């Protein structure tokens, strides 16, 4: 909880158009007399306080017109135990399911019919001769014992059949093959599938108001003649009076049953909004199932406007199944404050373009970038492999630095790292991470100096957060100095002729890409080993890994890579911290 007051503000808005409005929104707008699509319908604040080690919440602002009841939160916490929740005896979830089904079919929420059938079955059972005989035997004894004062009679009969009884005798099971005979208790079913079953059951237990509104249950009310009270002429007035009184009596009883089931149910029969919050929906799930779960939930929400589903997840497969606009990143900023940034609301330059690229490129590996506080963007997978090797050398024997390199998110972007990823992750004031380094090739002539990209301005990106570092002119030549032996060894393995002398220029010539002629220079052909760059990097990484394991650290870390690691690892937050707590807060943020 932390210190001080905590509160949660909730706001609920009408849909932008009537066609996708939920029954609750429609009925509230009807009541207000004026349709106001998109407007904020209602809002409230809940205060949070400690309560014996748990968090208690209470309404701080009154909700207009007693509306709080219409908003239901279904929370599946990360520590949920699906097996327990679904299989536990007397679990009310099954009863809720049955009621929702009943309501979906237009039959209210009353389970009288089902209870009556269960009752009849049991009644048959208790008619069995064995039970009768037992009753009789006890009876003789009890008569002798009680008749002196007031005779009592013993019966072995069925229990009172209420809704919880149904939950007690029925059980959810799971089968991997179709057919009821294959059903197995949940305790011995796959955890991932039980998790899915749990989510499926929760969704099924929320009554579908659109279906209920269109369904009709003729069996439930044989007399559809509401408003008509004509008395059949054949009957005498007395008889019809009696019939009418009996009918009224039935209606009262029916209303009473309706009330009981409504009072008993988690979901009221009125129009409502349900927020389902699922923490770590990916628990025990195969990646493919993670994708399909996230996509299915999105589909269901589109179809049922009264539902809102919030997932909290660290799973890249869940993230990539969502569009970026649906993602909200929760983190701490430099000052240790909790921030929560909706990607849809980020105020960043070239927004439309950044969003388009994000939608296109945010796949499972790239979306890892959303979970890292400190990360490095590189061009390709080979860069990623090599850079981490140099990282371990940079770390030396410092345990903290070694674990830092172990955990560092190095995200290969597949192409030269352009502006969109940096804009998305680290626009000034809208940061989704703490430090972001970019490693890219300068692709300039060897004689030229690398220059910073035009989009990297201090106005758009805080230099304390973003650093762009160049491999000049590309990765291979930039790591040559001091590592000539390793490069020669790898070239030998790959049977590439080793240039003489083996220096930065020679390596550059060896691997350079072909260039077309421009106004200022002639065209140049591809280097003899240009097509084997990838092979080279992988082989080099393999050699370095092997030597690392054998403890022979004779690798030189090039300056630009050292700069990256120093920048990313650095813990000094600010030159002039104005708040002494900042430094420690920034440390917290790393945790």
């Amino acid at each position: 909880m932390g210190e001080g007051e905590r509160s949660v503000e909730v706001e609920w808005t009408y849909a932008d158009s009537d066609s996708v409005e939920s029954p609750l929104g429609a009925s509230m707008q009807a009541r207000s007399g004026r349709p106001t699509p998109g407007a904020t319908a209602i809002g409230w604040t809940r205060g949070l306080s400690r309560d014996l080690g748990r968090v208690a919440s209470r309404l701080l602002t009154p909700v207009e017109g007693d509306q709080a009841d219409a908003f239901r939160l279904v929370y599946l916490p990360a520590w949920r135990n699906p097996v327990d929740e679904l299989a536990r005896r007397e679990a009310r979830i099954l009863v809720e399911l049955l009621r929702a089904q009943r309501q979906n079919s237009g039959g209210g929420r009353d389970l009288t019919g089902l209870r009556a059938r269960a009752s009849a079955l049991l009644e048959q059972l208790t008619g069995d001769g064995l039970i009768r005989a037992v009753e009789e035997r006890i009876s003789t004894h009890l008569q002798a014992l009680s008749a002196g004062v007031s005779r009592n009679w013993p019966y072995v009969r069925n229990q009172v059949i209420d809704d919880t009884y149904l939950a007690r005798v029925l059980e959810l099971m799971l089968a991997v093959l179709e057919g009821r005979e294959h059903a197995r208790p949940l305790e011995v079913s796959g955890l991932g599938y039980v998790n899915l079953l749990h989510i499926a059951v929760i969704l099924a237990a929320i009554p579908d108001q659109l279906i209920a509104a269109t369904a009709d249950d003729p069996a439930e009310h044989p007399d559809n003649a509401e408003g008509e009270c004509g008395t059949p002429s054949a009957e005498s007035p007395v008889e019809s009076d009696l019939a009418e009184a009996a009918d009224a009596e039935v209606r009262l009883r029916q209303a009473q049953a309706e009330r009981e089931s409504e009072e008993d149910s988690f979901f009221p029969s009125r129009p409502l909004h349900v927020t389902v919050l699922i923490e770590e929906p990916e628990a025990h799930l195969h990646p493919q199932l993670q994708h399909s779960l996230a996509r299915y939930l999105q589909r269901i929400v589109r179809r049922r406007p009264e539902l809102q589903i919030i997932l909290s997840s660290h799973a890249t497969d869940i993230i990539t199944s969502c569009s970026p606009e649906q993602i909200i990143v929760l983190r701490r900023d430099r000052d240790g404050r909790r921030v929560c940034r909706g990607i849809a609301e980020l105020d960043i330059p070239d927004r439309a373009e950044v969003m388009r690229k994000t939608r296109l490129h945010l796949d499972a590996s790239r979306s890892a970038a959303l979970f890292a506080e400190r990360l490095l963007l590189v061009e390709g997978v080979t860069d990623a492999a090599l850079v981490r090797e140099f990282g371990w050398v940079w770390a030396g024997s410092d345990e903290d630095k070694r674990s830092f390199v172990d955990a560092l998110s190095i995200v290969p972007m597949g192409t030269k790292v352009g502006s969109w990823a940096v804009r998305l992750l680290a626009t000034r004031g809208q940061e989704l991470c703490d430090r972001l380094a970019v490693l890219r090739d300068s692709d300039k002539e060897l004689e030229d100096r690398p220059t910073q990209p035009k989009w990297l301005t201090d106005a758009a990106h805080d230099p304390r957060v973003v650093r762009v570092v160049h491999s000049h002119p590309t990765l291979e030549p930039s790591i040559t100095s001091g590592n000539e032996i390793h490069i020669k060894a790898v070239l030998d393995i790959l049977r590439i002729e080793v240039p003489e002398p083996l220096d930065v220029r020679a390596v550059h010539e060896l691997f350079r890409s072909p260039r077309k002629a421009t106004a200022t220079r002639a065209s140049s052909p591809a280097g003899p080993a240009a097509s084997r760059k990838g092979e080279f990097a992988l082989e080099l990484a393999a050699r370095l890994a092997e030597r690392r394991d054998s403890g022979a650290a004779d690798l030189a870390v090039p300056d630009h890579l050292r700069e990256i690691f120093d920048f990313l690892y650095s813990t000094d937050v600010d030159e002039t911290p104005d708040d002494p707590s900042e430094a420690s807060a920034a440390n917290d943020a790393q945790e």
Partner: protein
Amino acid sequence: MASGTPEKRLFIDAGPGTGKTTVAAQRFGALRFSAEARNDHRSVTAVSFTKAATSNLRRRLTRIWGPVALGWPHRVVTLDTIMYDLLHDLLDAGLLRWPTGHTELTVVDSWNAFSQSAWTDASYEVFVESGEIRFRRITLNSTSRVPIRVIKEKLMSGICTHQDVRDALEASLNDSSIADRIRARWVKTTRALIVDEVFDANELDAKVIELAIEAGLSVTLVGDPWQALYVFRGARPEAIRDLLLRTGTRTLVLNDSFRWRDPAQRQLASDLRAGRAVSLVPSDHHAVDVVLAVTWKQLWAAGERILPLAFQSFKGGSEEAAATLLLNHVTSTVFGRQATYLTEALLALGIDDPDITDQVYSKLQDVLDLLARNDKMAVTNAYSALAEVIKSVSSRQLRPAHHAHTRRLADLASRLAHADKPILGLTTHQAKGGEWDVVGVVLSRSERDRLLIGLDNAEETDRKLYVACTRARYRTLLINT
């Protein structure tokens, strides 16, 4: 049967002791949880005329059906609330306009909360001219009123009284587009309407109820034509009788009364209702639990053992309000009941702290002690002491002692002087809805004559007598005066 029937236009004729509120509450639940309306998310609304009656009905309803019965959008409200809802909707839709363009108004019970009243003939009225709500100054008989400039300022900032809301609606109902809008509003928001004590309805109430019937809502009216007492407030029992006929509303009569514990009292009640002549057994007042009369004045005149809960129907003066505060002190102590017009008195004194009666408890007791001395100056001294008490809690000032201002204290002093425990005195209005074992009634000569002829429920006096004579479980006695 009355509560369970699917009849869409129903009048439940509920005589004394037939459990009117219970039937209304049962009916509410039956409609609220009716199987046919499962997917009809419009509201079931019950209305009554006073806040006390609505909270009474709400309590009964929750006791029978549980709090879930009143979950949004279902509700029990006063007709004033309905009227404001309708006006708000009309303002919102642009069919009516408030002079300052407000669409949300703050509606208060009375202007008294804003200012001290002054003796004036300046008043105002509401009228509507092609959709514009306007106010104009008028001159009425001089009486104690809140100054017109205070009212004007409030009206212009979107504050008005329930009466203004009603006047504005009444003035615009003849416009067919407004009637259409109200019908449409009924259909959109409400599926069933239950009106409790329907015979307290005035012309406007009756019209709005009729619009609901025309709009096809399930409408249940509950009431007793014999107990319509609020003609002085504009109630029009005959308008309801016409409405029942015009709309072809079916009547169900509740015959079983749970009140009568004695055959004579049962006979009395049925004789009265049938219009047969009756005469009451005369008695002294020592054997009764309560004494009833048509007016407060009759009660004060009927004997010094009778302590009425009010001096007169409340007019609004500060001296009257102060005396009411003192009377309340006595009645709370003796009967555990508030003086009838305590709320109005606090309002007239501009006091909005409801706990004020506790805060001045001991000071009021001192005033009573002065009054109880019963010497020549007792009343005058007590009056001055009371003025001091009021000064400490209110900005209003009492005028100097004068018979017109002190006579209430004199009346009270005569009750304090009496040795025996006082007997509760109530007007028939205040007694409505209540029941006691033995009831004494104070009757004028002409009222006694009415009983001897036989009552007619079209006559207001007769209805008051009927109510007075049907409050007892065992006996109704005539108090000798």
